[in-house]
């Protein structure tokens, strides 16, 4: 392929060089002709030469140009495996063309000299004759307007001059006819040369295309031209799409990076936020909750105390009653002791009286009676002391119980006054907790919405990658179809069949592809216009 490209480039270069040289030569030729003729003050015929030469040059140039075009096309469309052989053929063609051009140049040089010589001689004579005629006409006009001479003589003179001039004109016209004939001959020669060249080219083309179909060359070239044009059009369409895909992919990648950065930042923010909320605030809340629990335990204890009061009171009252009962029963015993002491005392007094009546015999008995009386008195004293002691004991018990109960009540009352503070603190803590979780959930929810938005953007872009894939697949499809058609065409070149059907199919392939792409072209732009939510539409 590289060899072919190089050969093509060399060929084009030499072709252009040849074309420019021949064109330049033709321009110089025409220019010289115009300059040469314009040096003479002779109106009739000087542009005719130029016109003829120009015409000749035009025909020559057009034919050269056409040949150049045809040769270029021929080279372009040659199969790769025949590049070298065909390049050799083309070199041969161009050698022939070069030889033809050289012939032409030689002919032009030669005929140009002849033209100039003939033209010079006759145009000078004609110029002189017309100059004489012009003088004579002036003279005649003066004579007629001024009536200062012999008019008849003047007319005769004028007639002679006019006759001479007419002869000169006739001679010139004859010469012009000669020149014209020479030019015609020259043109005929050019045409013959061209036909010859064309014939040679056709022969060469046939040789060149021996391995290729022997179809009508013009038709074949036109079809090749059409197919090449369509081929290039498909390549251009694909190239346009590839540019769009490349740009869109780049933009999409940048956008994706940006979105991922946002997503990462948002995720990092929420993690940091939750981490801070946990570290700083949860510990505060836990401590607060701990305090609240302590308050609750305190309150529970207090409630237990309140519940304990009646039982304790009952037990205390029962103890007091029991103690009082014991004291009362002891008091009765004391009274019994007192009564026994009293009776003993009376008995002792009576015994003493009876002992006195007995005289000496009763003396010892009197001593016993006195001792018994002393015992009775002592027993009474002891009973009184017990009674006094019991009374004191009862008072002591009652007073003791009373003080303990009041202390309990006081303590419990103090606890009750604390309850209000504890309840308020608990309520505050609960409100703080509620506020904390409400705020936390609101922020996390808001951030999750943002994250969801970011993620959907990312998904949208990832979906765009799928669109790119589908675009590339469409390109692959059209390339497969195009290559298939080109293979068909290559196969057809060896036969006499027309490529019209293939051209039509190639054209349809191009149109279908362009039409298909026009529906998907603005997918990225359309995506921007839409909401950021992903649309999983298949393209």
């Amino acid at each position, binding site marked *: 392929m590289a060899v072919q490209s190089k050969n093509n480039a060399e060929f084009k270069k030499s072709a252009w060089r040849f074309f420019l040289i021949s064109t330049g030569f033709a321009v110089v030729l025409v220019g010289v002709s115009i300059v040469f003729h314009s040096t003479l003050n002779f109106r009739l015929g000087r542009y005719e030469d130029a016109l003829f030469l120009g015409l000749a040059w035009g025909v020559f140039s057009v034919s050269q140009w056409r040949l150049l075009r045809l040769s270029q096309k021929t080279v372009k469309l040659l199969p790769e495996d025949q590049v070298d052989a065909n390049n050799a053929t083309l070199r041969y063609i161009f050698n022939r063309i070069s030889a033809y051009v050289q012939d032409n140049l030689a002919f032009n040089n030669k005929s140009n000299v002849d033209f100039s010589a003939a033209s010079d001689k006759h145009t000078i004579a004609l110029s002189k004759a017309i100059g004489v005629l012009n003088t004579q006409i002036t003279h005649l006009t003066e004579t007629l307007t001024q009536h200062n001479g012999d008019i008849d003589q003047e007319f005769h003179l004028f007639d002679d001059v006019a006759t001479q001039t007419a002869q000169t004109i006739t001679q010139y016209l004859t010469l012009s006819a000669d020149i014209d004939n020479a030019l015609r001959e020259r043109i005929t020669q050019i045409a013959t040369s061209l036909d010859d060249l064309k014939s040679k080219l056709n022969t060469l083309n046939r040789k060149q295309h021996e391995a290729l179909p022997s179809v009508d060359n013009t038709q074949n070239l036109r079809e090749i031209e059409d197919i090449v044009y369509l081929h290039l059009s498909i390549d251009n369409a694909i190239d346009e799409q590839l540019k769009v895909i490349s740009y869109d992919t780049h933009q999409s990648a940048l956008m994706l990076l940006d979105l991922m950065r946002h997503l990462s930042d948002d995720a990092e*923010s*929420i993690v940091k*936020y939750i981490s*801070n*909320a946990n570290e*700083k*605030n949860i510990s*505060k*809340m836990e401590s*607060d909750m701990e305090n609240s629990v302590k308050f609750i335990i305190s309150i529970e204890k207090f409630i237990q105390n309140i519940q304990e009061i009646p039982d304790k009171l009952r037990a205390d009252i029962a103890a007091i009653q029991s103690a009082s009962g014991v004291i009362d029963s002891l008091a009765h015993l004391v009274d019994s002791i007192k009564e026994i002491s009293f009776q003993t005392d009376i008995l002792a007094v009576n015994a003493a009286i009876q002992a006195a009546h007995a005289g000496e015999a009763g003396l010892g008995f009197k001593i016993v009676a006195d001792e018994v009386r002393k015992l009775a008195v002592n027993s009474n004293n002891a009973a009184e002391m017990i009674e006094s002691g019991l009374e004191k004991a009862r008072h002591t018990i009652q007073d003791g119980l009373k003080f303990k109960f009041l202390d309990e009540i006081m303590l419990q009352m103090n606890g009750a006054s604390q309850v209000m503070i504890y309840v308020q603190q608990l309520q*505050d803590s609960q*409100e*703080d907790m509620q*506020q*904390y979780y*409400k*705020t*936390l959930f*609101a*922020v996390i929810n*808001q*951030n999750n919405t943002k994250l969801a938005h970011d993620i959907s953007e990312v998904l949208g872009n990832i979906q765009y990658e799928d669109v790119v894939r589908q675009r590339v697949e469409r390109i692959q499809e059209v390339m497969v179809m195009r290559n298939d058609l080109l293979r068909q065409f290559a196969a057809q070149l060896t036969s006499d069949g027309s490529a019209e059907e293939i051209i039509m199919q190639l054209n349809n392939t191009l149109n279908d592809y362009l039409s298909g792409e026009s529906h998907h072209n603005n997918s990225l732009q359309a995506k921007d216009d839409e909401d950021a939510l992903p649309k999983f539409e298949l393209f």
Partner: protein
Amino acid sequence: MAKILVIDDEEQLRDLIKKMLTRDGHQVLMAQDGEEGVRGFHQFNPDLIITDIIMPNKDGIEVIMELLKSHPDLPIIAISGGRRAITAGFNLDSAEMLGVKGILQKPFTHQQLQEVIQKALGL
């Protein structure tokens, strides 16, 4: 000078902020809770909002979310702290996460308030 809406349920602090802002030449509107604050915003269209976080009826977080949803570029300054706000830092972090332009922990000085307002208004 800006038109500023102050939303705070503590009257004393509200009055203090008003004094500070009025001295700086701002036009001050006041609301005592979130609901009144949102109404005030729609009615007066202020340039800047200073809102407390913990408030009855509608708290500062709700106010911030509602207003920023409809006016994403609205400059809002969140303030928090005081007697019961054991989670003032957390509340201000939350406000910042929601997109407020400035935060200020109570108690604050006049200078601190001026600085945060200038930053929020982009001055």
